[in-house]
């Protein structure tokens, strides 16, 4: 499943044993696709001597800071962004 800019997505809340780049503080949080980057080798297999294939599409996903951090002290409009691989994204209506 591919996603488009502006689409609402949720970061999968699953555990993952071993190297992965999905920030723990964003797991289970919902955000919006801001950019669709290229496809890159999957670091979750490359980290262990694999070839990282198939390549995975990487997305820049943006979140409201207040939804990520309960008690966030900044302003309501503040956002946080992270690059997340496609297999960590779940579509939302």
């Amino acid at each position, binding site marked *: 499943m591919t996603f488009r800019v502006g689409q609402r997505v949720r970061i999968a809340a699953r555990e993952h044993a071993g190297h992965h*780049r999905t*920030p723990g*503080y964003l797991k289970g949080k919902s955000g919006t696709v801001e*950019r669709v*980057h*290229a496809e*890159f080798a999957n*670091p979750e297999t490359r980290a262990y001597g694999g070839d990282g294939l198939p390549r995975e599409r*990487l997305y*820049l996903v*943006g979140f409201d*800071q207040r939804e990520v*951090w309960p008690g*966030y*002290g*900044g*302003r309501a*409009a*503040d*956002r*946080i*962004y*992270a*690059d997340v691989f496609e297999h960590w994204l779940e579509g939302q209506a």
Partner: protein
Amino acid sequence: MSDHDHEHDHPHEPITTAGEPPAAARARALDALLVEKGVISREDVRQGVDWLVSRSPADGARLVARAWVDPEFKDRLLEDARSAALELGLDPGPSPVVVAVENTGDVHHLVVCTLCSCYPRALLGPPPDWYKSLPYRSRAVSDPRGVLEEFGVELDGDVELRVLDSTADVRYLVIPCRPLGTEALAEDELAALVTRDSMIGVAVPAAPALA
């Protein structure tokens, strides 16, 4: 050889590796193994390190200054930073994609790598130590306005703060706001105002003091 047993006449403590972090010993062991197995050569490692430490924020500053004086170049920089760097004859480095983001009167960007130290090294040189520190990496995402205050940056009331938690494949470069009162400056004079920290988002370039 653990003792300091060579003969010369200047006094010093034995040169040891005691006290180095475990990761350093692991890196050296990996390096030695890769060389021994012929995967890489000492010369490859030396050239890689030389290239990394030869990079400097002056390259990023040239991109920013050109973007300040040439709106069409800024559009190309925002569209494809790698091509824009090549256009100025800069070396954008090997694989990682660089994405430039623009600060305006309404939006301020701050870059961090919570996982390790991902950074646009090709255009800014090696990251500062604080960028790799645990306090910066954790607080830049959860309390970014507090971090900015500690760096001496106070954002105006309605400015939206955007934190970018970057990872290995895509590196982010902030195009800071051009300071007021710099209309008469030439491009190279503008580049001199663009600090490394302002391209990470923890500082704001200032106009030169009036003579």
